[in-house]
């Protein structure tokens, strides 16, 4: 774990782009944690006298069609970005890890579980998420769940791959032949080795969850419209793209750079990962 983190920071000093990514993520986190302190206006504060004002000294990022301050909304949007990211990653790990580990340790159950994962993977990711939204209804928690199911599948596959490799490795076999319990094997041998592949996967999932959530918002099927998410801001800006292009620029930039930074972090982590597990990572699945 510490070695992995050292790896990231080492890579960050060697690669300026990775350093940029880490700094940008820090900015997003600060925005999210300290939004009321940073945002000059309330995100929902309507100012009908100052509609569609271009960026200026008072409104750094301009205002929207209700006269709401774009900068403040962007700052508050970071909260949602973080919430969605943590939610999706949390869900994907809490479901994908047990599925993958159990499948690797008990081949009989595994055959069924992993076939189930295959079936879910036959659904293109956005369609799967949309289908779940139809069942669950619109809302933040439901968006998290819908995107989470998409990444449950990739996470389970990766964990399964890594756990299979580990199971075949001599020390796990030796531990098992010496009568070590399964739980003990998992805790002692499988989970510790899983940390760095999971960190890499978590960065990618976090990144693509942003894009998935933005797509749902844009289609009007994600975050409720009264919540200032970056995706909602983009959806609303559509009608004003020629009159107020800044409304398009800033939220889109935030989404893109957040996903970009997370992808960079994931890459840096992967470069420092045990090469044995790298192939189990597969290619990233964009939403």
């Amino acid at each position, binding site marked *: 774990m510490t070695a992995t983190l050292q790896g990231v920071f080492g890579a960050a000093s060697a690669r300026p782009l990775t350093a940029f990514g880490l700094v940008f993520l820090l900015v997003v986190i600060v925005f999210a944690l300290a939004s009321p302190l940073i945002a000059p206006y309330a995100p929902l504060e309507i100012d009908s006298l100052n509609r569609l004002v271009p960026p200026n000294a008072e409104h750094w990022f301009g205002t929207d069609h209700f006269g709401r301050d774009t900068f403040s909304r962007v700052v508050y949007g970071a909260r949602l970005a973080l919430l969605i990211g943590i939610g999706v990653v949390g869900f994907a790990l809490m479901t994908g890890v047990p599925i993958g580990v159990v499948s690797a340790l008990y081949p009989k159950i595994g055959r069924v579980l992993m076939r189930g994962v295959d079936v879910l993977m036959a*659904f293109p990711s*956005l369609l799967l998420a949309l289908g779940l939204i139809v069942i669950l209804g619109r809302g933040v928690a439901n968006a998290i769940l819908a995107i989470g199911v998409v990444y449950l599948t990739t996470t389970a596959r990766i964990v399964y791959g890594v756990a299979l490799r580990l199971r075949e490795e001599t020390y796990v076999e030796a531990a098992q032949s010496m009568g070590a319990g399964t739980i003990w094997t998992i805790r002692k041998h499988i989970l510790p080795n899983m940390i760095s592949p999971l960190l890499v996967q978590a960065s990618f999932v976090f990144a693509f969850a942003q894009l998935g959530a*933005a797509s749902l918002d844009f289609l*009007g099927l994600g975050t409720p419209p009264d919540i200032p998410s970056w995706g909602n801001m983009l959806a609303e800006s559509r009608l004003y793209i020629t009159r107020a292009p800044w409304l398009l620029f800033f939220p889109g930039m935030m989404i893109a750079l957040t996903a970009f930074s997370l992808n960079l972090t994931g890459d840096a982590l992967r470069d420092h990962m045990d090469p044995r597990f790298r192939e189990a990572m597969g290619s990233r699945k964009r939403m």
Partner: protein
Amino acid sequence: MWGYILKRTAAALATLVAASVLIFIFIHLIPGEPAAVMLGDAATPDQVAALRTRLGLDEPLFVQYFYWAGSALQGDLGRSIFFDEPVTSVIADGAQTSILLASITMVWVVLIGVPVGVIAAMRRGSWLDQGLSGLAMLLASIPTFWVGLYLILVFAAQLGWLPSSGYPSIFEEGGLANLRYLILPSLALATPNAALILRLTRASMLDVSKEDYVRTARAKGISPRQVTLRHILRNALLVVVSAFGFTFAALISEAVVTETVFALPGIGRTVVQSILRRDYPVIQGVILVIVCLYLVLNLLVDISYRFLDPRVELE
């Protein structure tokens, strides 16, 4: 070989059956009585009862499934509640646009992603490579609809070069010139996917160039260009080609957003509108068709991969 094809086809069919069960029970998972949900709040109890009978909702669930799957096999996916016409014809209307859009996009992806990836790999570590790889990572992180909106802003609204929305079929008035309606949407859709293929191409070129057989090729004294073309590129493309099927299917799904941005009459937009209209038979139908398409594409890619790569044991 035939054994392998049979085996893979059987596996794909099994997946399809499992997926169809999921798609079928989907409307039963929506809270509320399916018929009432479909008809909306304004429906009278009589209408609900009529729809129940029409959809066979009074039968046991598994009977309903076999009824539904049986009709689907015969090409009958039910009737659209909104349009009151067969789901198949609603899908057929949109499919033409979507497949054309995905195909044009695929052309961009291949024409841009692969060669640029090769160039980056050949100049490994140079400024060009670092710039291209960084740019590709950035482009892969951008929402397609954002790219689409910017393309509209610049090329349609400001420069007026290309239309910003809609697509009259190439079989209608205007003919092939109507393809210009698909230029901006396909570029938007191609952006992240070309970037991902670029990175994949570069990475597999670099992986292959570390192989022992590449050293053997160099030892023969053939030119570096030939080493790259005949040994590295050729083997690296095996990996890239196997990603094409996956990418094509991903395009159909991502087109949901792109078609909405550009107001294209494709199946992606049909899905979104059907969700808003609660036209469940259409949603079920479209998803079933796309899953089929995905499985068929993957099957074809898998099989052609075995033809291209003699290593794989032909069971």
